[in-house]
């Protein structure tokens, strides 16, 4: 009987040993050179950001290490997260009381956290940084509502149209500036083994973004009226979706399922002559020819009813989630460090050619322009910075900020409307009417 019990215990022990192995603390948190001041523990500041590729994590860590070494009373650490899960994970962490002190955000993510009552107003800090480095107003506006500024802008991302100069020259076309010219160009560029343009059509963020590029350039950048009611269903929006349908005929057959990576690959391997994208620089440099003289970037062409080109732009920012004054002060000290020219350029260049400055001082920061890739593709970067100045974001336009846009963007309803047009074959007018109905439904929920 005794042997018998021992046998069972042995069996369970093996299993528990495996469990215990899992329960053992794994690698310690990234250490820093910081040391507590005499007799007091250092103030810990944890950052969650969504810049997970290893080289971005490494660059942020370099800056954190420098900061920690220079500020012995503060220990900053990073925990990279994924955009795919952060909309679930961050509210859960806030509710459970283990949220980070600093959390990176885009405009339509901030209202979700704000509703939980943990996001701290940052207008005083933003004003302080603005006095020193001069924020672009369009970067701050999406975070300013309900009498407060809820996040500190850190970097900007804006769409441009990417092409090869040699491919345009061979087809005998010049970079189009209007929709009429663009349609002629993509038709001419659609040849054996090459599609004129690559456009997505799935219910996903990339499609939201590309469709909105065309809405902006049709004069349909406002989704809301001044009083907060929806104005998605209007002639300009219909014009944008109809033009999208026309262009879509010249897009590869697999493009409905694309996100950013597939579009870039299509451009890099020369299947797509033009793609709308935040940047292709790194991919073009490492996975294609890497010839800066041949890489073309232009503003997104506009309708003849609109005077100038615009684009979608995301001002990425950081929210402060702690109510502890010591942690607030430490977190702000780190943000001061990050926005200081010399550090700021290196921060932006964690992904050269993708992240653009949100301050005037940042756009002149030598550490931004001195990066080898920035030197190589300087003219392209200058055009991107210029295009970004005409950036818009649905729900956050012309000084009107409507946090309820989070419900619309969370369900990718702009993209779903595009699907109705290019996949389901609805007329642009019918699809836009249905899109508005879906949006009203989402807001009512």
């Amino acid at each position, binding site marked *: 009987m005794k*042997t*018998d*019990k021992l*046998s*069972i215990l042995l069996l*369970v022990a*093996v*299993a*528990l*040993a*495996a*469990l215990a*192995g*899992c*329960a053992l603390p*794994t*690698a*310690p*948190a990234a250490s820093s050179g910081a040391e507590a001041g005499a007799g007091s523990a250092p103030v810990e500041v944890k950052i*969650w950001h*969504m810049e*997970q*590729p*290893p*080289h971005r*994590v*490494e660059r942020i860590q370099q800056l954190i290490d420098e900061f920690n070494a220079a500020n012995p009373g503060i220990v900053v650490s990073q*925990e*990279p*997260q*994924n*955009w*795919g*899960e952060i909309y*679930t*994970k961050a509210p*859960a*962490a806030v*509710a*459970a*009381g*283990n949220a980070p002190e600093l959390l990176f955000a885009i405009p339509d993510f901030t209202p979700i956290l704000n509703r939980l009552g943990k996001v701290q107003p940052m207008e005083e800090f933003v004003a302080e940084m603005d006095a020193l480095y001069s924020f672009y107003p369009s970067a701050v506006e999406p975070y300013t509502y309900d009498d407060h500024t809820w996040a500190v802008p850190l970097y900007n*991302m804006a769409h441009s149209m990417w092409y090869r100069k040699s491919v345009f020259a061979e087809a005998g076309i010049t970079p189009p500036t209007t929709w009429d010219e663009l349609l002629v160009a993509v038709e001419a560029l659609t040849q054996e*083994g090459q599609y004129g343009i690559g456009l997505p059509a799935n219910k996903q963020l990339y499609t939201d973004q590309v469709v909105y590029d065309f809405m902006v350039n049709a004069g349909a950048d406002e989704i809301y009226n001044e009083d907060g009611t929806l104005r998605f269903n209007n002639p300009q929006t219909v014009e944008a979706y109809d033009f999208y349908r026309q262009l879509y005929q010249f897009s590869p057959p697999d493009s409905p399922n694309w*996100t*950013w*990576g*597939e579009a870039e*690959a299509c451009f*890099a*391997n*020369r*299947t797509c002559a033009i793609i709308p994208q935040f*940047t292709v620089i*790194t*991919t073009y440099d*490492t*996975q*294609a020819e890497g010839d800066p003289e041949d890489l073309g970037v232009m503003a997104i062409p506009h309708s003849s009813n609109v005077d100038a080109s615009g684009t979608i732009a995301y001002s990425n920012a950081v929210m402060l989630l702690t109510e502890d004054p010591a942690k607030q002060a430490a977190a702000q000290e780190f943000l001061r460090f990050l926005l200081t020219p010399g550090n700021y350029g290196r921060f932006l260049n964690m992904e050269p050619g*993708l992240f653009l400055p949100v301050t005037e001082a940042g756009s002149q920061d030598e550490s931004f322009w001195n990066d080898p890739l920035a030197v190589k593709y300087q003219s392209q970067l200058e055009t991107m910075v210029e295009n970004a100045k005409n950036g818009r974001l649905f729900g956050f336009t012309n000084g009107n900020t409507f946090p309820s846009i989070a419900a619309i963007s969370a369900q990718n309803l702009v993209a779903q409307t595009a699907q109705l047009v290019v996949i389901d074959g609805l007329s642009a007018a019918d699809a836009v009417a249905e899109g508005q109905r879906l949006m009203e439904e989402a807001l009512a929920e």
Partner: protein
Amino acid sequence: MTTRIRHRSLLALGLLGLLLVVVAPFYYVATSSFKLPQEVIAQVPTLFPQSFTLQHYEKLLRSSNFPTYLANSMLVASGTMGICVTLSTLAAYGLYRMQLPAGKFLFRIILVTYAFPGVLLLIPLYGLLSQLGLVDRLVSLVIVNVTFTAPFAVWMLRAFFTAIPGELEEAAALDGATRAQTLIRIVLPLAAPGVASVAIFAFILAWTEYMFASVLILSDANRPVPVGLAGIIGQYQVDWGLLLAGATVTMLPVLILFSLVGRYFVEGLTAGAMK
């Protein structure tokens, strides 16, 4: 004779087709992970690599935390497998041999828990594990994985135990064997294919689990492979070579496990189907 040859040819063709469908993706992923970036995304995919490089593996193993993710996954999958096999063996044997009151009812309840959609438990589980201080701990993943694998494992093992003649256990009892000795020395060896199937099932489920891992694990140092790999691929820019190298390395432990106990797994599945 002609009919027999025709049937065999059709069978061989069918098997070849099936083999292609199953093996082709693995072949393409594995061989492409050794191609230069330009060839990986080439307009016309190459069936046989035209270039060779180890740069993707070098980047994966040196510049990213992938080795840590791999070690974490190994711990979680092994822990899940060990505990699931132990618990489900004892539970299935208990349900099968012991005259438990409401045994049948219990067995059905276990099946119902297997059918419950996991996603609905995500937020409540996060809150619960957070209160227990288990968020961002690998043990939380083991607990969750065992919760989802054990019901099916119990159901599967019970079918194996039922097929073992009761006379064997009676004979063992006459020879003085206790219940535990009977289970370990008589029943388990006969149910080895079932135990192997359960082990592989638990290992693979834990190895590939993404949803709970992505929410319950916060720090990079504790991420398992599926979540870690999704992160290093990037959102706006995809390093396809790195992705393929990561996918290839991720497949290896499962392939090794299958090569060791795969035969039992197949036997277990087919035997289970007949019972």
